[in-house]
């Protein structure tokens, strides 16, 4: 079944629409996921930082480095945690999980005595992190910094969205195909039938009202169009037939005898004869 140009145009438009919808959905989802995950990770990181802060008071005061280190290492294993380090009240890094050393960007991060602070940090070569700084003993003993990996978050978002978008696109295409089938059946087929009848009229084929009978019965605009079209086609055909009947042969009858007599009356007069003579003279003069 050929696909009419009109339908092609409509489908192309619908495809553009779908792509726009999918893109918009993806962007909104991505934005929402980013916000939610951010909240989750940050609160996770904050909770961890606070726990470590509380737990390490004694160890810090006792300067028990190895216990501190193993506590930090354990924390760094937690999903989403990139690094953990502790600074003392003088800003010196007491313990950390960086390999091999603490990056410059991170070294300068300070803490707030009153509350746990969260900020976004970018470290060249390592990526983006959310740094959560929790005060130990109100900042008297120093700060705990927990770095949550933003990259993991970003990847999670991407895979979630990709999956969703693909699913949406597949569903929409399926719906569009179904929709197109419906449109073809109800609209373009009748239109094609009308154009077929119009073309056959143009060629001069006899007009067959049965061709539009089914369509004319429809109660919608297409039915109306078919009825009007049918009336018009019948009129055109009738007019053509009338015209064909009227193109008569032009019959020219000349009474030859009468004509000969009339011609003779003119040409046999002396006047005409002298005119003929003059004609020869006039023509030679003019040459």
């Amino acid at each position, binding site marked *: 079944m050929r696909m009419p140009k009109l339908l092609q145009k409509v489908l192309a438009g619908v495809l553009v629409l779908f792509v726009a919808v999918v893109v918009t959905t993806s962007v909104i989802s991505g934005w929402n996921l980013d916000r939610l995950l951010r909240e989750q990770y940050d609160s996770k990181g904050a909770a961890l930082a606070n726990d470590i802060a509380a737990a390490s008071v004694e160890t810090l005061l006792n300067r028990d480095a190895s216990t501190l280190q193993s506590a930090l290492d354990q924390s760094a294993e937690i999903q989403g945690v990139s690094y953990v380090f502790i600074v003392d009240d003088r800003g010196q890094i007491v313990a950390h999980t960086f390999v091999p050393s603490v990056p410059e960007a991170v070294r300068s991060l300070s803490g707030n005595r009153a509350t746990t602070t969260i900020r976004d940090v970018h470290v060249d070569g390592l990526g983006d992190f959310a740094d959560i700084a929790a005060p130990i003993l109100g900042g008297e003993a120093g700060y705990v910094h927990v770095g949550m990996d933003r990259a993991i978050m970003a990847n999670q978002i991407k895979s979630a969205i990709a999956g969703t978008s693909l699913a949406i696109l597949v569903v929409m295409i399926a719906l569009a195909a179904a929709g197109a089938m419906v449109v073809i059946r109800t609209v373009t087929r009748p239109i094609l039938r009308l154009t077929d009848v119009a073309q056959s009229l143009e060629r001069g084929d006899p007009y067959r009202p049965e061709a539009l009978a089914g369509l004319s019965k429809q109660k919608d605009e297409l039915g109306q169009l078919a009825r009007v079209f049918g009336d018009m086609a019948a009129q055109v055909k009738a007019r053509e037939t009338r*015209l064909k009947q*009227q*193109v*008569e*042969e*032009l019959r*020219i*009858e*000349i*009474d030859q005898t*009468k*004509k000969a007599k*009339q*011609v003779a009356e*003119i*040409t046999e007069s002396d*006047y*005409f004869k002298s*005119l*003929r003579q*003059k*004609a020869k003279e*006039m023509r030679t003069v*003019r040459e």
Partner: protein
Amino acid sequence: MAKIVSIHSFHGGTGKSNTAANLAALMALAGKRVGIVDADVQSPDIHVLFNLEEDEFDKSITDYLCGKCAIEEAAYDCSRALQLDGEAAVASAGLYLVPSSIRAGDIARVLCEGYDVNLLSDGLRHLARCQNLDYLLVVTPPGLSGETLVSITISDVLVVILRPDRQDYQGTAVTVDVARKLEVPRLLVVVNKVLPRYDLKAVGQAVARTYDAEVAGVLPLSEDVIGLASGGIFALRYPDHPLTQRYRDIAAKLMAV
């Protein structure tokens, strides 16, 4: 040397004046210098088509034939009629009308006294030389009177116009025979006022067969022409009308060798 074209019909009412005016205008638009003479003294009407008001012209062909003036005094320059909507006419072209007098007295005198037929032929040639014309269209009176015969005699082309009407068929047959006896160099037939329901091409072929002559054109009866009601020259008023194209085709045949 100007070519003299007589536009003739056996009966009146065939559309001679209208056809002649349209042909003259189209030939002028094609760049030719054209003169048109209303020699149909009995029914002066060409000046109406050219919108030449009765008080705008005081000399006519009638005056010339009565010896009252020189023929060039009765020729009026109508080339301004050619300028339409900014379309400039070809600079060298010209359109001159020698009208016929509408004064009843003049008409009666010419009809009664007749005129020296050589006068007409001399006058026409003189006019053609004066205005350096390429073509001089002479609309003759209907029928084959002496004056008409002279006009036909000195013509290079005779255009016979007829309607698809029994009277015209018979009359045209006589005209064609007489014209051939006068050895007119070229004879063209134009069928005018044909009802549109006829197949115009078939009509042309039937007429050509009947008179064994070249049919220059078949012109359908047009409501648009009747609507214009001699208010102007149809071909100038409706340059894109199919009828105007038919006039153009006839003009082209006239201008061909």
